[in-house]
C-alpha cells in the first residue's frame, strides 16, 4: 500500500493490517504503517482518529486484535511493553508517565533500574550519573535528586523526554511533545530531534500544529476514523490538503470572522490584581460583545488570570469587577454573577467523566432552571437534549457517560454547561487544545454567536493564528504581568511574540 519514496535500506519497523476494537468502537481498522531509520514520520488526524490507539499498540500497551508487525522485515510479536522495548521502541506520552514522589533519576530509569551486586538492590549512584549525562544533553540543569512532584509542567515534560532518550531508542514515538513546552524548550527539543535523526533513530511524531508538521516531517500520514487515509511527502502537499484529508471535507483554515457590531459597555474590569499564584499588578478589561485574547508563553500567568477572575484562586490585592460588581468570592459567586470558565483541563477540571452527558450539561445551570431546591429529571433531560442539538454534540443520547465521548464533543459539553447557566462572560482557557480541526471551526463559530448575542469572551490560546483570527484585541502576558495590549490592527504573530518574549 505504501510506496517507498525515501529510503534505500527498507523500513525499520512495519505494522501490517492492524485492527483494534473496544466495546462499541472500532478504534483501528486495517492500518498499515512503516517507519524508516533516520526519518521523522508525522502522524496526523482528528481526535478519535486512532493515533493514540495506534501508538499504544506499537508500544505494547494494547494488544492488537488483528494484524502483524515486522522488525527489519522479520515478522515479530508485540505482546506487552517489554516486547516493544526489545525492538527499541520508546514513547513520550502526552499524559505524563512520571511518578510524583520519586526523584528524577528514579523516574528516568523506572523499570530499568541499574542493578547492583545485591539482588533487588539498585545502583543509585550509577543511575544519578547516567541521568546527569542525559539531562546535560538536553541542557537541563536540574538536580537529579529532585522529586518530580516539585517540578513544573514543562520540566516534567522534559524529564519525560529524557526518560525516552535514556532508552537508546531506535524508534521514538512523540505524542504532541511540545504541547506544554515554551518556545525555548521547543527549540531545544527540535535540536535534539535533529541529532537523533542524524544518529539514524526513527521517529513517529503526533502533532496538531501544522508549523511543526512541515518543519520536522519527512513523511506525513493521515488517519481518520481508525483508518489510514493517505501518506504524503511534505514537498508534495499543503496544509489545506492535509486538513481536508483529516476531516474528509474542505475546511477554511482562516476561521473567517463576521463583522460584528461595536462593543458595548465594560463587563469585566480587572484592576491591579496580585495573587499567590504569581500574578503581579494585572489590569485588563473586556466589553460586552467582544472577544479579547490573552496570549503569552506557557507559564506566563494566563490561566491564573482566568482563575483569579473566576474566584478559583485568591486575589491578595486589587479588584475584579464583573458587571459593575466587585467579585471577591469563590466560583459559586462568580457563577451567580454570570461568569463562565471553560478550563484548560477538560477531563480533570471540566467534566465529571463517570457521569452522563446530561448530568454534566445541567450542573452549572441547576439554579437557573430548577430554582433553589427541586430538581426534575424529566425536565433536565429535555434541557440536555436541546443543548445537545444546539451544539451538535455527537453522542448516542443524553444518558451516555461523558467520558466515552471524543475530545471535541467533551469540550462542547463543557461549553454547553455554561450556555445552560446563561452566563454572560466566558473565560475560555485553551478551548481548542487537543481538538480536531472540524470541532475547532465549530467552536469559533459558537464564540462568534455568543458575542453577537451580547456576551463577552476572554480567550486564552497558545495558537497565535487563532488569536489573530478570532479576537478583537488581545492582551499579552509575561512573567505574571500584562506586558501589553494590542488592537486588532496591531495583532501579528511577530508583535505578540515580541511582547511575550523575555528578551524583547
Amino acid at each position: 500500500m505504501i510506496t517507498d519514496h525515501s529510503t534505500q535500506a527498507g523500513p525499520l519497523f512495519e505494522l501490517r493490517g492492524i485492527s483494534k476494537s473496544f466495546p462499541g468502537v472500532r478504534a483501528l481498522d486495517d492500518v498499515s504503517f512503516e517507519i524508516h531509520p533516520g526519518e521523522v514520520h508525522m502522524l496526523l488526524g482528528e481526535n478519535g482518529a486512532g493515533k493514540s490507539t495506534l501508538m499504544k499498540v506499537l508500544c505494547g500497551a494494547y494488544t492488537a486484535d488483528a494484524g502483524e508487525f515486522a522488525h527489519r522485515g522479520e515478522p515479530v510479536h508485540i505482546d506487552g511493553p517489554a516486547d516493544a522495548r526489545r525492538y527499541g521502541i520508546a514513547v513520550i506520552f502526552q499524559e505524563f508517565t512520571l511518578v510524583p514522589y520519586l526523584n528524577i533519576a528514579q523516574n528516568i530509569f523506572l523499570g530499568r533500574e541499574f542493578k547492583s551486586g545485591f539482588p533487588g538492590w539498585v545502583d543509585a549512584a550509577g543511575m544519578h550519573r547516567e541521568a546527569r549525562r542525559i539531562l546535560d544533553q538536553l541542557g537541563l540543569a536540574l538536580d537529579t535528586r529532585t522529586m518530580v512532584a516539585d517540578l513544573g509542567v514543562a520540566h516534567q515534560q522534559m524529564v519525560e523526554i529524557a526518560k525516552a532518550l535514556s532508552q537508546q531508542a531506535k524508534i521514538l514515538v512523540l505524542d504532541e511533545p511540545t504541547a506544554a513546552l515554551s518556545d525555548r524548550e521547543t527549540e531545544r527539543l527540535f535540536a535534539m530531534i535533529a541529532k537523533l535523526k542524524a544518529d539514524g533513530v526513527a521517529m513517529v511524531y503526533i502533532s496538531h500544529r501544522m508549523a511543526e508538521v512541515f518543519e520536522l516531517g519527512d513523511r506525513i500520514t493521515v488517519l481518520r476514523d481508525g483508518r489510514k487515509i493517505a501518506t504524503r511527502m511534505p514537498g508534495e502537499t499543503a496544509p489545506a490538503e492535509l486538513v481536508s484529508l483529516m476531516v474528509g471535507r474542505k475546511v477554511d483554515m482562516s476561521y473567517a470572522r463576521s463583522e460584528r457590531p461595536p462593543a458595548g459597555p465594560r463587563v469585566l474590569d480587572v484592576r491591579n490584581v496580585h495573587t499567590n499564584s504569581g500574578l503581579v499588578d494585572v489590569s485588563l478589561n473586556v466589553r460586552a460583545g467582544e472577544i479579547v485574547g490573552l496570549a503569552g508563553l506557557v507559564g506566563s500567568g494566563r490561566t491564573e488570570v482566568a482563575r483569579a477572575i473566576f474566584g478559583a484562586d485568591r486575589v491578595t490585592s486589587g479588584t475584579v469587577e464583573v458587571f459593575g460588581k466587585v467579585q471577591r468570592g469563590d466560583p459559586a459567586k462568580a457563577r451567580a454573577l454570570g461568569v463562565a470558565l471553560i478550563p484548560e483541563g477538560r477531563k480533570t477540571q471540566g467534566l465529571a467523566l463517570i457521569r452522563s452527558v446530561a448530568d454534566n450539561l445541567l450542573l452549572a445551570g441547576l439554579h437557573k432552571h430548577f430554582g433553589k431546591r427541586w430538581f426534575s429529571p424529566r425536565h433536565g433531560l429535555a434541557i440536555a437534549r436541546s443543548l445537545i442539538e444546539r451544539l451538535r454534540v455527537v453522542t448516542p443520547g443524553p444518558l451516555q457517560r461523558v467520558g466515552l465521548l471524543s475530545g471535541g464533543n467533551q469540550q462542547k459539553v463543557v461549553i454547553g454547561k455554561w450556555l445552560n447557566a446563561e452566563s454572560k462572560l466566558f473565560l475560555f482557557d485553551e478551548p481548542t487544545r487537543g481538538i480536531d480541526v472540524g470541532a475547532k471551526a465549530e467552536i469559533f463559530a459558537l464564540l462568534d454567536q455568543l458575542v453577537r448575542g451580547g456576551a463577552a469572551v476572554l480567550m486564552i490560546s497558545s495558537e497565535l493564528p487563532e488569536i489573530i483570527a478570532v479576537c478583537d484585541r488581545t492582551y499579552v502576558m509575561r512573567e505574571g504581568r500584562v506586558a501589553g495590549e494590542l488592537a486588532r490592527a496591531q495583532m501579528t504573530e511577530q508583535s505578540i511574540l515580541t511582547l511575550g518574549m523575555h528578551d524583547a
Partner: protein
Amino acid sequence: MHDAVTAAPAPNFLERLQRAGSAGGAAIVLLVLFAVFALAGRNFLTPGNLVNIAMQSTILLLLALPMTLIILTEGLDLSMGAVLTLCNVVLALVAVKTGALAPALAAALAVGLAFGLLNGTLVAALRIPPFVATLGTLGVAQGLALVVTDGQSVVGIPDAVQQMNSGLWFGLLPPPIAIAALAYLAMHLLLYQTRFGAYVFALGGNREALTLAGIHARGNLIAVYVLGGLMAGLAALLLTARINAGHPTAAIGMEFDAIAAVAVGGTSFERGKGWLLGTVLGVLAVGVLRNGLNLMSVPSSVQVSAIGVLVIVALLIDAFRGDRR
C-alpha cells in the same frame, strides 16, 4: 520560559524531610508531648519508662510499617488487626501443641501470608477497592479466630515463645525492640534502596507509568499486601509473647490505630506521598501520649479523647504547613 530551564536549587536535608511527607506534624507533636511529660511527670524520663514506651509501641509499629507501604500504593488494609489476632491464636495453638517456637511462628507467618495473598488478589487481580476487600477479609479473619478458639483464650504457651519478651538481645535490646528495629531497617532499605521500593511509590503515584515501563504492577501490588500479612504474622509473635496467650479478640481494631499512626506520621492517602520514618514518629507519639497520661493519672475518659485530639492536631499541623508550598 527563560529561567524555567535554569537550575532548581538542590533540596537541602530539611526541605527533603518536609517534602517526604510534610513530616512536621508527628515530629512537633512528639517533641511537645515529650517536653510536657518530662516537665510534669517525675517518672517519665527514666530509662525504664522509655524502654516501656518502646516495648509498648513495637506491635503497633510492626503493623504500621507495612501499612505505610500499602497506603503509599493508595491502598488500605483494614484486615490487619484481625489477621494479627488470627495469627496470635494460631501461633498460640501450635505452640501449645508442639511446645516449640519455630513451627508456631511458621504457622503464624503462613496464615499471614495466606491473608496477604488473599487481600492482594482481591485488590490487584479482582480489582475490588482495598477498603472493601480488606473490610471483607477483616470479617473472615475475625470469624476464623473466634471459630478455631470457640471464643476461648489459648494458654499454656511454652517458654520458648515467652522468652521473646524477656532478656536482652546482643546484650543491649529487649527482643521486641530489637525485632522492631530490624523490621524498620529492613523496610527502610526495601522502600528506599530496592526496585520494589520505587515500584511502591509508582503504584500510588502513577500506576500506568509502571505498566508502560513493562513492570508487572499487579504482582508488585500483591507483594505489598503479602508483606502486610507477613508482618502481621511476625507481630503475632510479639503479641503472643507479650500476653503469653492467644486470644480471639486480642488485636481487634488495631488496624485503625496503625492507619492513624501512619497518617500522623505524614503519609498521605494520595499519590504515593509518604515517609517511613514519619510512621515511627507517629507510633511513638501515640505511645508517649498513652504512657504519659497514665503516669499523670489522667482519667481514662480524658485519655480516650486525647488520642482523638492528637490525631487531628498532628494532621492540622501538616495541613497548615502544606499551605506554604
